[in-house]
């Protein structure tokens, strides 16, 4: 029985491994932001209002060198362009929701929450859960499909709380975890664990490899545009492979 609450906690649980890698990022951001002369209140508020790691890093760096505000705002917009891709990718799963749910989940749509939620939704599609046959006698026949947004909420909120706390740690403790612990790499390892089951056919493998290689070659592109370039290259490669059959 998949109630809203159990979906929510499953989302939190699925997000936990990613938090290990997110904490150092949040702390480094906090320290970096304070270093620009930004007041602690603004540094913390940015984590809540913008809530996007890479954009916050770029902002802190631009503030430090006295970049004009308008340029900073445009830069934030470009760095976060990839979120439009995530938005399109998740939209079909959230279509049935009330507007306030869409607004809330859009606010929580980060790389890390997107990754966990979308992988779960895709796997559900490929292998529908062994739902018990429709029982007309049941008072509240809530199909698990309609509770899926609670899973996303769990992922998003877990990450949100972690991001706020690690920012605060960076700001108020003023220190970061030692770099040679390489905790950030747990993020890559978690993504690997999530990716392996998704690489089920040749088209997916080709899409992934292409995106990976292009992502490395295009990493020098400014403003995280390399990631979008890589994503589009991967999509094209996947479709090409699909059509070859």
């Amino acid at each position, binding site marked *: 029985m998949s109630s809203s609450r159990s979906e929510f906690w499953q989302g939190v649980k699925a997000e936990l*491994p990613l938090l*290990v890698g997110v904490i150092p990022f949040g702390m480094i951001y906090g320290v970096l932001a304070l270093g620009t002369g*930004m*007041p602690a209140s*603004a540094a913390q*508020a*940015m984590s809540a*209002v913008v809530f996007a790691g890479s*954009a916050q890093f770029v*902002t802190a760096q631009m*503030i430090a060198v006295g970049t004009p*505000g*308008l340029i900073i705002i445009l830069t*934030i*917009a470009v760095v*976060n*362009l990839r979120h*439009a*891709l*995530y*938005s*399109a*990718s998740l*939209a*079909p799963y959230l279509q049935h929701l009330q507007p306030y749910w*869409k*607004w809330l989940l*859009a*606010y929580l749509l980060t*790389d890390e929450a997107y990754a966990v939620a979308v*992988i779960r939704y895709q796997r559900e599609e490929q292998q529908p859960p062994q739902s018990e046959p429709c029982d007309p006698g049941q008072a509240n026949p809530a199909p698990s499909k309609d509770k899926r947004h609670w899973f996303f909420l769990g992922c998003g909120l877990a990450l949100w709380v972690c991001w706020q706390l690690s920012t605060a740690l960076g700001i108020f403790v003023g220190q970061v975890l030692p770099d*040679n612990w*390489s905790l950030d*790499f*747990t993020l*890559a*390892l*978690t*993504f*690997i*664990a999530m990716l*392996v*089951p998704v*690489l089920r056919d040749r088209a997916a493998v080709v*899409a*992934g490899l292409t*995106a*990976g290689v292009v*992502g*490395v070659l295009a*990493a020098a592109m400014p403003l995280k545009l*390399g*990631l979008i370039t890589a*994503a*589009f290259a*991967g*999509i094209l490669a*996947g*479709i090409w492979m*699909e059509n070859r059959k």
Partner: protein
Amino acid sequence: MNIWWILLLGGLLTFLTRLSFILLLDKLSFPAWVQRALRYVPVAVLTALVFQMIFIQDTGINPSPLNPRLISALLAGVVAWRTRSVLLTILTGMAALFLVQALL
């Protein structure tokens, strides 16, 4: 510009970007070819992120087969494939990373 305005407008733009298609899909629906393309977004984005975390270092691209992160990732991939366990994957990967970094 006041830092608070930067923060507010930057946050608003970020939010609208994230909301864009989630809200728009009510009014329009994706054509079939877009839906097909979107299926590849997760695998493409995640692999690109992983490859960047493995190969991009402060000094640039590190293509060495002895790159500790590459060795760790390959081992983690095997563990993920055999066990399907996120926790085991992370533990093996981090153990391998520490070990290789200590040895090299």
